[in-house]
């Protein structure tokens, strides 16, 4: 087990601790580690650090470990943790802020976490282009970028047979307005891929 010098970590990453508090708007310092969030988390079984540990790691300023963790991507944002926290810490918001921070710092997720990021990007790129999600384009881009070429391929035919698959994208009239939203956010924040 890796040894962590808590004092050093806190003083070195004081900015990070403050920033997470501001970005997420959550009183992370209030967490007393009851573990209720982890007990109810439906996807904790797949996380490298369960939710209550993530909050403790924020308190301790363990920035690098957090931004590299798969937890922040595997979190399905279902808000079970946020709803049950006795200290009213919306843990799902903290996860969200950590994901955004990881993106900004250029920390590339790996493995299953990478698949989540690739899917997010694939979805958003179809929205930026057409104004709405284009499912076929999303899956194709997702598979190319994740390297899982035949992911969901068995869905194609049954979906098509039921008229649930639109092969061609349909662009909304205001697609340029939606593209503008992405451009403006990039201008204001920088770094939104």
């Amino acid at each position, binding site marked *: 087990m890796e040894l962590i010098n808590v004092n050093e970590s806190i003083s070195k990453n004081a900015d990070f601790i403050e920033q997470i508090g501001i970005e997420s708007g959550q009183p992370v310092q209030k967490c007393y580690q009851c573990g209720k969030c982890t007990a109810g988390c*439906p996807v904790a079984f797949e996380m490298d650090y369960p939710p209550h540990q993530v909050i403790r790691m924020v308190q301790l300023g363990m920035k690098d470990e957090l931004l590299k963790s798969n937890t922040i991507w595997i979190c399905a*944002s279902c808000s079970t943790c946020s709803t049950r926290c006795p200290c009213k810490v919306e843990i799902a918001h903290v996860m969200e802020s950590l994901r955004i921070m990881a993106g900004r710092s250029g920390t590339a997720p790996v493995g299953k976490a990478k698949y*989540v990021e690739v899917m997010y990007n694939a979805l958003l790129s179809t929205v930026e282009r057409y104004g709405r999600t284009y499912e076929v384009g999303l899956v194709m881009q*997702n598979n190319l970028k994740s390297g899982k070429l035949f992911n969901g391929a068995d869905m194609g035919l049954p979906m098509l047979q039921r008229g649930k698959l639109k092969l061609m994208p349909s662009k909304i009239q205001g697609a340029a307005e939606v593209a503008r939203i992405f451009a403006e*956010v990039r201008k204001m924040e920088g770094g939104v891929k």
Partner: protein
Amino acid sequence: MRYAYFPGCSYHGTGKEYESSTHAVAKKIGMELVTIPDWSCCGATASHGKSHLLNIALPARSLAIAEGMGIGEVTTGCAACYQQLAHANIRMTESEEIRDKVNKITGKEYKGTLKVKSLVEAIGIVDPETIKPLIVKPLTGLKVAAYYGCLLVRPPEITGFDDPENPVFMDNMMKLAGAEALDWAHKTECCGASLGVSNLNIAVRMINKILKAAVESGADCMVVACPFCHLNMDYHQKSVNKQLGTTYDMPVFYFTELLGLAMGISPDDLGLKTHFTDTQKVLNQVG
């Protein structure tokens, strides 16, 4: 009853039964759904992993257009769209700073005058006395596990119309339709949502727990109010069976489909023939 209606990107694809059954039921109960002209994607489950501002600005464009319609209330069937629209609405109503910033990004003026309701709330608050006479084919004897999932009822600061741990809106509607709504443990457990696309091997384990609980409760079928829940529970039921060696055969309906059935709307008009898990045994049961 008049709403500005946000269909959501799955409306003509994976969630098309939800769309057709929503309109069929709305017509029966006298609810007018006016589609928001040229609405755009709400950002779904992706934009909140990218940027706080993008996450508010994407739904804000449609809110601004809807506000211009002068209807005052917005509704949408999809739980993810609902969450995104309601979240953006609250953020832009509570903070002038955020509202100004986001309006600058969208290039559209949203003043923050709208109310956002999920379709479950919009139909659920209709006077039962209006609905009762419309139930011409009650679903007598049908045992239903109402599955709410996550984004419809959580977090309560955003949703707030029903209990986040033990919601009852869909249960009450199923009772009105003559069915038996079951008490069961996994009403609000998350199905994994888009993990079904990015990491199916994780999602199948989440879906399995929910299907198992529904079977153990003695349900003949499940009802949902979200195209993602439906995709995961209906289509990926066979992925669960394949990966985990289970033998689930649980029909999964949108709540509007079962309401419509009880109102005598034909199964074809409701879209009951395009499910992946066979619905016939339920149709036989309720005749």
